[in-house]
């Protein structure tokens, strides 16, 4: 075995490739899009962000590599612990969190500033997949299986919601998707849908009926965001971000302005996180934007293939759950940039600039790759005995 063979990352090489491509693409995009931020803070020195991001990226790869070298079963057992750490973290954030841009989302622990919701995301997705995998046999049991899982999901989302409603909603949707994949009874899922819809209608009615001064905390921001969504006219600051995102996409054309030539990065607040997809479309054109979207979808497709080979629902569910979570987040970020969704504040995994969230995203990717790797190693191809139907046999033989 050569040295490379010893140290090379294992698992699905296509997935690794996607991760690498997106990460480096992200690095380039950050370099372009931090122009405005750099101007405001450092008088134009963009290099500092490039270095910062490179450092984080290197750290991210390191974490991914370490995590993927550890058998995923350890993470699954850790998820129970993680979920119990999550609760105090979220409560701490709500009370002592640091306010950035009007939202109290950040906490400072041992000198590291991070969003507890990022951690919660990872913990709850892993916890739910674990629970679903463990309880596959009693999956239809409302009281023993369904309620406890839903209870955790709801509790976590409710703790995130006050300061970060969009993350809470996306997290809930992701969990719902995982519950669906994890064979939760359609009847139960319908029940969740019903309850959520009623609650949602009530909430938004309240938001719009109540006088503005009665709205507490971030409620006004939410209202504004929902209001500005879908408008095509320049209305003061309300549609400012969306308009500039659209200008970026439109002026990018089919082939783009080429890397480093974005104009709109100067106009878009958070060009390096929330609206980075618009900058991608501006610099790399429609083609670049489509390729990026396809890369995420391809990653998801490769993740789904794990299910086909996974001997246990355990590993498959966790990989698929995390993949869906990450790709859904990516799609929502893109949907915001093209104004399909209102502004959520969700980042584009692997691409957006962001300190510690990159590291937690790396953990998530690392776990997915761990599943990919150990499924390959534990159950080499052909030894699959659970492949019952013909379709999968075909895929397996590819």
């Amino acid at each position, binding site marked *: 075995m050569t040295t490379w063979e010893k140290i090379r990352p294992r698992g699905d090489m296509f997935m690794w490739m996607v991760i690498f491509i997106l990460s480096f693409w992200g690095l380039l995009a950050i370099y372009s899009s931090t122009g405005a931020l750099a101007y405001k803070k450092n008088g134009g020195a963009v290099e500092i962000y490039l270095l910062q991001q490179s450092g984080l990226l290197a750290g991210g790869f390191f974490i991914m590599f370490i995590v993927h070298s550890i058998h995923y079963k350890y993470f699954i057992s850790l998820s129970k612990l993680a979920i119990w750490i999550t609760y105090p973290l979220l409560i701490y954030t709500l009370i002592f969190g640091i306010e950035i841009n009007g939202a109290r989302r950040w906490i400072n622990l041992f000198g590291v500033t991070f969003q507890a919701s990022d951690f919660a995301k990872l913990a709850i997705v892993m916890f739910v997949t674990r629970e679903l995998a463990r309880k596959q046999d009693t999956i239809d049991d409302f009281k023993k299986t369904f309620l406890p899982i839903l209870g955790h999901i709801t509790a976590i989302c409710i703790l995130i919601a006050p300061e970060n409603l969009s993350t809470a909603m996306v997290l809930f949707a992701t969990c719902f998707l995982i519950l669906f994949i994890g064979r939760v009874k359609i009847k139960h899922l319908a029940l969740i849908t019903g309850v959520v819809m009623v609650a949602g209608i009530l909430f938004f009615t309240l938001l719009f009926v109540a006088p503005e001064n009665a709205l507490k905390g971030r409620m006004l921001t939410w209202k504004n965001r929902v209001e500005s969504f879908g408008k095509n006219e320049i209305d003061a600051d309300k549609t400012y971000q969306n308009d500039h995102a659209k200008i970026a996409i439109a002026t990018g054309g089919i082939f783009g302005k080429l890397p480093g030539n974005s104009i709109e990065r100067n106009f878009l607040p958070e060009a390096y996180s929330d609206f980075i997809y618009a900058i991608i479309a501006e610099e790399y054109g429609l083609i670049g934007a489509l390729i990026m979207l396809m890369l995420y979808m391809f990653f998801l497709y490769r993740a789904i293939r794990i299910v086909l080979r996974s001997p246990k*629902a355990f590993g498959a569910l966790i990989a698929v759950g995390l993949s869906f979570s990450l790709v859904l987040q990516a799609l929502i970020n893109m949907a915001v940039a093209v104004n399909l969704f209102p502004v959520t504040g969700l980042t584009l995994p692997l691409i957006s600039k962001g300190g510690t969230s990159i590291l937690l995203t790396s953990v998530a990717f690392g776990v997915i790759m761990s599943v990919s790797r150990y499924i390959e190693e534990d159950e080499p191809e052909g030894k699959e005995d659970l492949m019952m139907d013909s379709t999968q046999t075909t895929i397996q033989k590819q």
Partner: protein
Amino acid sequence: MAANNRKVILIRTYTAFAFMCVFAAAIITFLFKIQFKERQHWVDLSENLSTTIQTIEPARGSIFAIDGSLLATSLPIYDLRLDGKAPGFTKGDVFENNVDSLALMLSQLFKDRSKAEYKRILTSVKKRKDRYYLLKRKVSYPEMKAVKEFPIFRLSKHNKYEGGLTIEEKNKREKPFEYLAERTIGYNMSGIKPVGIEGAFNKDLSGKEGKRVMQRIAGGTWIPVNDEEQIEARNGNDIHTTIDVNIQDVATHALMRTLVANDAEWGTAVLMEVSTGEIRAIANLTRVSEGKYSEKYNYAVGESLEPGSTFKLASSLALLEDKKVQMTDLFDTENGEKRYFENAVMYDSEKGGHGVVTFQHAFEISSNVAISKAIYQNYKSNPVQFYNHLEKLHFTNPLGLQITGEGKPRIKHPKDKDWYGTTLPWSSIGYEIKVTPLQMLTFYNAVANNGKMVKPLFVKRITNTGKIIKEYKTQIIEKKIASPETIKNLRIMMEGVIERGTGSKLKNPNYTIGGKTGTALVADGRKGYAQTIYRASFCGYFPANNPQYTCIVMVNAPSKGIYYGGAVAGPVFKEIADKVYANSHNLHGDIKLVLTQTNPNPTIIKGAHKQQLQTALNTLGKETKRSDSIEENGSEWAQATILNNKAKVTPRIINKNMMPDVVGMGLKDAVYLLENNGLQVQAEGYGKVKAQSIPAGTTLSKGTKVTIKLG
């Protein structure tokens, strides 16, 4: 795990994947929609939104008097606006905790609104989220500095937009000497016809605008796109005039007093240096209401009018130069009446006439009959010869001055359609023609200058940051207007006017004057000369033996019964001449000179009103170090010393019962200070105070007379 379960999981996973595909498809649809369907809209919008070209305003140049004092300068003033959406207004409790103290401080600083009123404004701006509320206009530099330090606003120290105070700099044109030569300094305002030096030298003064391409970036911040594309603003040049502030002051006030005393409509007085043509003083006053006059129109430059008897000098020049008459030729004044035509009778101002007089004496007593007869007899057959003289004297065309708005003269040519039989005799005494007072002055000045005619000069130099851009030299427009013999005779006649003629009131033992009076009937457009409105004038030079200055004074429509040039305009001339002569360093009264001890740090500004001094220093440079005690000390007065090349302002404590040390002060400040202390001030000379008759520190009693000597 049951196989069936697996199957279900697979089916559900694919279903979820299908859902994701639909989602991805929706994003692609939107991408295409923006890219193709809405493309034009966004591209257009981007062109409108992205950049703007910001002009960088240059600082307008200053206008200086001959001694370097500022006649006009631009002071920065500031408009303060509030941004109700700035963090200082919206974030946390900052606003609530500080609004009271902010309102109080604003109220204390500006003293125009109560604290409660300011609080109400601030709260409402916050509530309405007004991003551009005009808090206060035209705030001075020190005030602006103070406001920046106020609670909430001072958040801007970290981030320009955080405090919610938007400061817009503007320039305000300030004339430190207010109405002195105001019309000649002029103005240049948009929408109004520019006037005076400001108008004529606008191109020099205004400098060149700079340009900068700005882009709006996140958070509403505008940033310059590219430093290389920036065009720097070039500040305006400074204009150095020939005006002497002290003489100007005398001229304005002497004219003012006469106008008030005679309740005249308007008046003008101009003083010109003989050899150079430099205008030392130019006053133009118009009655705005009874007893109130202000600079409204530049009569000296702009008003072309019938000069009356002062024009007889031109007629005499022609006659003497052409040797048509001798000084001693006798003329019959014919009982003061001469009928030229059926309806055209020329009268002398003295009824019954002067009998038979020499030509010289006819000039001295300003006999219309004698002078017009001399002209009529000699040029009747060849009036063009007379016209040619006037042309040579530059009466027929404008002088082409440095400042705008010069009036157009009108001298009839014998071939003109409106050349009548009366034209020749009447123009010989200054009617049926129109010239500007400055043209007349230029002519008299040429006579005083031994026949060399120079153009009036208003501006000597244009500089930029001390570097000379352009220099204006005295321009000779006629080398020799007449032979030395003629000039000599004209001056003998003009001195005779003072010695024994219409200007005898100006006679004084100190120095001699030569000149000519004029008392013109003013023609009203519709009513002709029927109104008996007069325009009194005097034009002359001094000292007669060695002319240094020429001066013209014109008073229009005096209405207190006195209207002769010698009586109305003469005294103004005399007052100006007296002052100028007194300062000519050969006439000194005896005053006890008090010397001040020498200060190792030269005091540049000995004493000045504190606020004015601050304003001045602010203008000079914002870096000027100010001793803070000036704010705390109760004294209104301050002095500035130069220490290590930095101006330092310290308060000057003035004790009301003690004679202050005014040495080194300007006249205005010294007089203000002394009169405030109850003293009667007599000032001599011009410049800064050199000596004072009462030593500093002497205990004073009210009404004591004090003489100060300037130099």
